[in-house]
């Protein structure tokens, strides 16, 4: 397996293309693509890839990119696309449709700040606005994790127990444009990992159905219950896909949550994406000084791994949730999930929110140290703390 020095975007482009190519002996691969900074290199990679049985359609908008991918998927092809930020916002209507049509489309999203103001840097507000749709969501930390998770995402999404689209996210520039040594699996290995896609409800002339027409409340309720049942099967299916990935490619794409020094930790940092990388190093350093600190990195955001998180935090009395996103009028979105996770289970647990790196600001080890210092002083949770800015008493 060759190791190359490539960017996160290159890793994603390779993973999407090799996965699409792996379906050449079935119904092939087809997708719609549209560029937006900072994911453009992904769709450029896909557009250049010499598919044996595939078509990449450069369309006029993100809305249509997902539309073409939906059509391709409905016709039984493996399908995927990539987007970011306002592009995802423009695509939203069809993102929702892909989920409710139970289509195993894989989308790589590069997390970029939603505008205005016009800002191209990292912020998870774009993919997290999709949190209530029937899509699985994974947040990645490194180029290798992006590549591995993207390939795994196809196997998971296409599993007949799941049949839901899957989103793989990475931080803008910090991952998307940063080169790192990445192992690229050969095509034959990807072929062996991904079975031919057989979408049970694809369009067939021999069995004509009408998809998406009027349904009464009870039929709609059944549909939503089926989505919920599929979501609840994800943790088991994910671990199976992970183990098979390990035995095929010789490395673990990572558990739904990844813990570091949590066993006896008093205070635990909760983070995702590249903030987890920095936080891990800070925890490592401060552990050496004898502090009982730990880290939980959340990789799988949908479905939300509540049980695993509760288990990982059983020794802690305080959590600091570092959110690179902001839900207006509430606070960090991971923080909301964490509060819901522990409500009724650990009402004694102090869960404090820190809004860090909003709009792409650097979350340096010094910022994480500030978070830890702030958390140490608290004996009750306060409203979310905005890092990197001094708030006045009143704004005139």
């Amino acid at each position, binding site marked *: 397996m060759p190791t190359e020095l490539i960017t996160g975007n290159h890793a994603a482009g390779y993973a999407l293309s090799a996965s699409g190519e792996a379906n050449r002996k079935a119904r092939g691969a087809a997708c*719609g693509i549209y560029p937006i900074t900072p994911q453009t290199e992904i769709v450029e990679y896909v557009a250049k890839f010499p598919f044996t049985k*595939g*078509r990449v359609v450069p369309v006029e908008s993100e809305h249509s990119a997902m539309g*073409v991918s939906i059509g*391709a998927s409905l016709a039984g*092809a493996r399908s995927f696309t990539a987007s970011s930020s306002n592009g995802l916002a423009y695509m939203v209507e069809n993102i929702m449709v892909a989920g409710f049509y139970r289509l195993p489309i894989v989308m790589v999203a590069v997390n970029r700040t939603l505008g205005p103001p016009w800002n191209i840097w990292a912020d998870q507000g774009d993919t997290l606005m999709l949190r209530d749709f029937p899509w699985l969501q994974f947040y990645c930390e490194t180029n290798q994790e992006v590549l591995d998770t993207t390939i795994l995402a196809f196997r998971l999404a296409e599993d007949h127990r799941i049949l839901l689209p899957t989103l793989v996210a990475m931080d803008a520039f910090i991952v998307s444009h940063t080169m790192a040594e990445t192992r690229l699996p050969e095509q034959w290995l990807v072929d062996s990992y991904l079975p031919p896609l057989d979408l049970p409800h694809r369009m067939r002339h021999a069995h004509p159905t*009408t998809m998406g*027409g009027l349904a009464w409340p009870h039929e709609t309720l059944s549909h939503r*219950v089926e989505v919920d049942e599929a979501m609840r099967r994800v943790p088991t299916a994910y671990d199976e896909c992970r183990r098979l990935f390990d035995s095929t490619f010789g490395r673990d794409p990572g558990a739904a949550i990844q813990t570091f020094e949590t066993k006896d930790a008093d205070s635990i940092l909760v983070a995702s994406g590249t903030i987890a990388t920095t936080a891990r190093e800070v925890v490592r350093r401060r552990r050496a000084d004898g502090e009982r600190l730990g880290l939980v990195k959340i990789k799988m955001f949908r479905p939300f791994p509540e049980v695993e998180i509760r288990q990982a935090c059983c020794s802690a009395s305080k959590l600091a949730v570092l959110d690179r996103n902001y839900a207006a009028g509430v606070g960090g979105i991971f923080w909301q999930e964490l509060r819901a996770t522990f409500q009724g289970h650990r009402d004694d647990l102090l869960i404090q929110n820190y809004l860090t790196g909003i709009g792409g600001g650097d979350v340096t080890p010094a910022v994480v140290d500030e978070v830890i210092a702030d958390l140490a002083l608290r004996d009750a949770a306060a409203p979310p703390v905005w890092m990197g800015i001094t708030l006045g008493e009143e704004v005139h």
Partner: protein
Amino acid sequence: MTTTPRAPAGPGILEKPALPCSEECLLRPGNTNCGGCGMSVGLTMLGRALARADQTCSLVIPACCGIVTAGAYPTTSYGVPTVATTFASAPAFATGIASVRDLNDEDGQVICWAGDGGTYDIGIATLSAAAERNEDIIYICYDNEIYGNTGGQRSSATPAGARTTTTPTGKSEDKKDMMAIMVAHRVPYAATLSIAHPEDFERKLEAALSMHGLRFLLLHSPCPTGWKSEQGESVELVRLAVASGLFSLYEVWNGDEYRINAEPDWTDPAKYLERQKRFESDAVDLERTRLACRRRFDRLGRLAREFPRETATA
């Protein structure tokens, strides 16, 4: 808790050969369309044309009366694979479906069936892009000149003078010339259809079914509910539209080969307008309408003389 029945699962990676459409296969009896609906007649004509051509199709339908036609799950009025798309997305979905059909060397037309809202308004960018890429799909717009599905609001296909729920005193702007827009994309085939001219209609469907690339068909589709007209007069109304020069029957190949299919007899357009309560409005300027009919057809005639279709048949 009941569960949703699913289409039978199976290995079926490769499609069986598409079965040709039977005459009643496309739009089946028992649908709940309004009496006098031009779209219903259009779907029936399409089903017949497919049967005669020994072809079948998938239907790709955005939000419009055409998807309401299907009825409520788990029943459907459509006998061919049909998918509902988001309002603006029919040509995008169709692009994906047609791409996979071609990758697998399969048969079956991919047909977008959309109203004027999905075509002239919200879906125009998607349609324009599919036309520019010359996707191998048929796009049929049944133009009833109104947002019929939502109860009769204006669209950019609504003619000047017509009252709608959002232009209560009559629309002041002219109808958009959608044919000219599609012709400007130089699509292989663009044609207008009228249910009052069924032989012309059938011939054009036959022509479209025998070609490749993006084929655009514009059907003048009476809507008694929105037009506030008698259900039994639908065919007569669109006949008057052609006769008066309000709606012209013509076809264009590759953006520059024109052929006119029916000459108006210059019936007074007042005869068309006065039979629809939507035109009971001070905004109707009869003299301007008469002049516009003449000017439009005159322009079309010059185009047809200047850039005629050279070959004898479609």
